[in-house]
Structures are given as C-alpha cells and as structure tokens.
C-alpha cells in the first residue's frame, strides 16, 4: 500500500505520511494555490502546479521527495497569438517507454506535451487545429478545459483526453490524429437536437482501470458512464444517491470497481441531505453501495473536486478532500473512513505516491 499522500490545496501542498498514524510531514508553497500534484512512478519525481492569481501558472518539480523544488517550464501558447495559458487542469505521466514524457491539459483547451520532464512543452497542434474544437465551450470556467489524460499502459501511443465541454477524444498515434469518442453520452444542458453531440459533452473526469485499460469510468455533468471498449462507446450507470459530481476513481486491477462522490446537482453543488457519502460499484456499475461509515452525516456541505479523490495501487486505500478543507482516508476500499483533517484549505488534488 502507499504510505504517502500528496494534497494540493488553495493554500499550498501538504504531504501526509503514515508513521503509525497519518500526519503532515511536509508543507510546501504555503499560501500559494496548488491546483494539481503528480507523482511520476517512473522516476519518483513529484510535480506541483501552482496557479498564482497575479503571476500565472507555474510548475515545480522535486527529485528528492519534496525536500527541494525547482521551477520547470510551463505550457505556453504561441507568442503573438490571442491565447494565453489560463490554467492547467490535467498533468499526467506518459508511458513507461517514454521517459520524461508528460501530458498537460490546459485552459483554454490546449493539450501540451513535454519529453524532458517538464523543462519544455509544445502544443499538440493536431488537436488544437481540429475543426471540431471550435465548438467546445467552457464548463466550470469561461473557456474549455482539458482535465483528464488517459495513457494506455499497453501502448503509450494510445491516449485519451476529456474536455469540459468538448467530450472525450482518442488518439492512437501519440497525438498525431484525434477522434471524438463520446458515443453514448448525452447532455441535458443542450437543446434536444444537440443532446447527443459528441463534441460538446461535459465529462467531469475520466479514469481507466490500469490493468484493464479498455474499461473507462466517467463522471459527467449529468450522469456517469462506463466504457468497456477503450472509450469507443459509453453506457450510462447510476451512482447513488445522485448522478452529479466531479471525481471518479477507477480500481487499479478490478475493472468492475470504481468510486464516485455525488453531489445534489449542477445548480446545488453540495452533498445530498448534507451527508457526505461515497458511491462504490463492484459489479461494473450495475449496482452501487453508498458508503458513509466515518463520514459526516449532518449539515456537511463539502464538495469534492475532480482531482481530489484517489485510490492507491492496491485498491484498498483511498483518500478524498473537500472544498471545506476536510480530508478523509479509507484503508478498506471505502467501507470505513477516518478524518485526517477538518482544517485544510480547500482541497484541489489528492494523490497517493504509488
């Protein structure tokens, strides 16, 4: 199991270690918003994305477990153009056969890649120049954002990205060409004739089962979906007690198991009845357990962002953090939860060091 947890928050990055009990052992960038954190299992590096309100978005890397940090490069839109990096909503490692490869999903809708551990970045122009991209629009922000990048561990050239609002896109040639791939999703926020338009869907987060990468899970703006064919088609599933939410965590080895953290609905982003619960399926989405043991069940108004739920490499240990600064951890697949903090800044990202 993973004994280290990285927690990116509105006011810094905090490292939890399990030494008997879980406690904070590292405090980094205190005061600065840390939107995303990535532990790269290929070389042990940790990346922190700082979204500084006045001074732009910056990426820092640590090669010694967080003792020291170095600012690396950041995705940069072409000088002289109209666009500028507004935020980074996804940061993921490439395949094992691509040392140094990182993918970054950004606002206003550009996908970037680095082949030198973040020192330099280039815009993936094939997707940026895709005509269908012109129909993307903002979801949760003024402009479209790429928030999920899924790299197939069997073939690193197979990459999927999810866009709010632009649907799910697949490439099978390392990003040279792209195909929109949202069949089965529907959009309640569109007029009837646009409901099934694949290029305007609003997936909130997409994750794949690591050992069965054709199985993908999606928490969407108005529902949840599962694919068993690598994202070619999607079928709706029904987390309880509601279908709205942001995160989903895919079990690393069991393709039938995933976790969601539902909220009431788009226009009321709080837990149903003020009770924080986790919805878990262990049968491919046919049924859901509503897990609440150890979670607040009265007047709790915590929302969990898309990167703020994570599962470790065993599938037994999970953690999630909320907009009101709570952090919970389970050692048994979600059956029971313990509170690690009620006092963190708003939590943006939670990652185990796998």
């Amino acid at each position, binding site marked *: 199991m993973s004994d280290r947890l990285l927690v990116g928050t509105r006011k810094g990055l905090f490292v939890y270690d399990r030494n008997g009990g879980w406690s904070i052992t590292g405090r980094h960038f205190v005061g600065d918003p840390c939107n995303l954190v990535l532990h790269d299992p290929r070389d042990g590096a940790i990346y922190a994305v700082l979204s500084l309100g006045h001074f732009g978005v910056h990426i820092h890397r640590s090669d010694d477990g967080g003792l020291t940090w170095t600012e690396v490069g950041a995705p940069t*839109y072409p000088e002289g153009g109209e666009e500028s990096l507004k935020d980074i909503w996804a940061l993921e490692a490439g395949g094992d056969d691509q040392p140094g490869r990182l993918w970054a999903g950004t606002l206003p809708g550009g996908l970037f890649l680095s082949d030198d551990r973040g020192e330099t970045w280039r815009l993936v122009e094939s997707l940026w120049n895709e005509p269908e991209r012109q129909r993307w629009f903002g979801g949760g922000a003024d402009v479209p954002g790429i928030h999920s990048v899924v790299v197939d561990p069997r073939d690193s050239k197979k990459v999927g990205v999810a866009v709010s609002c632009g649907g799910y896109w697949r490439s099978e040639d390392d990003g040279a060409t792209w195909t929109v791939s949202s069949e089965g999703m529907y959009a309640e926020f569109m007029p009837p004739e646009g409901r099934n338009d694949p290029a305007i869907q609003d997936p909130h987060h997409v994750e794949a089962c690591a050992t069965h990468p054709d199985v993908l899970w999606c928490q969407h703006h108005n529902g949840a979906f599962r694919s068993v064919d690598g994202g070619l088609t999607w079928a709706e599933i029904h987390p309880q007690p509601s279908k709205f939410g942001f995160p989903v965590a895919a079990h690393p080895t069991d393709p039938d198991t995933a976790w969601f953290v539902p909220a009431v609905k788009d226009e009321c982003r709080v837990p149903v009845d003020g009770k924080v619960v986790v919805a878990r399926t262990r049968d491919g989405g046919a049924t859901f357990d509503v897990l609440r043991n150890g979670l607040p069940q009265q007047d709790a108004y915590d929302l969990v962002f898309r990167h703020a739920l994570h599962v470790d490499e065993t599938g037994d240990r999970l953690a999630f953090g909320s907009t009101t600064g709570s952090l919970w951890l389970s050692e048994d697949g979600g059956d029971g939860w313990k509170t690690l903090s009620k006092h963190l800044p708003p939590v943006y990202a939670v990652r185990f060091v796998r």
Partner: protein
Amino acid sequence: MARVTFTPVLDRHLDVATTSAAGATVREVLDSVFAANPRLRRYVLEDHGGLRKHVQIFVNGEMVADRRQLGDAVTGSDDVYVMQALSGG
C-alpha cells in the same frame, strides 16, 4: 539606463532585485531584464506578450497605457515599477 523595481511579492517566487536596464520602451526595458532573468517573464507577461491582467507597470509614477505592446516610452534615468494590482486579490 532605467531603474527597474519589482513588487516584493515576487520575492517568494524568484530573485527580483532592483536592476538597471536599457531600452527606449517598456517592452525593451523588460526584455533587457528578462534576458538576465528568463523565468521572470512568465510572471509578468501573458503568453501572447501582453501584460498580465493583474500586474501594473508605472513609469515615473504614471501607469503605462499600452498594456499589450508595452510601447510606452522610457528615457535614461526613469523609474519603472512592476507592481501587483490589487484587482487580482
């Protein structure tokens, strides 16, 4: 040479000691500074080269007018201040 001073708020992110820099416009002066401190550029300018929305530049106490091209004139001993705008926080 203009004298260029940066908001101390940036101190926590990188070295921004007051410096002297040559140039006939704000753009040229900043380019001189960035040549010696390349990381600083992205803290001050957007990708497209314009001034970040929540950064202000003053030349001898006057707020610059041309935020996109940074064409405001700078002469020999001018004081250039790069400040954090309160609008951003």
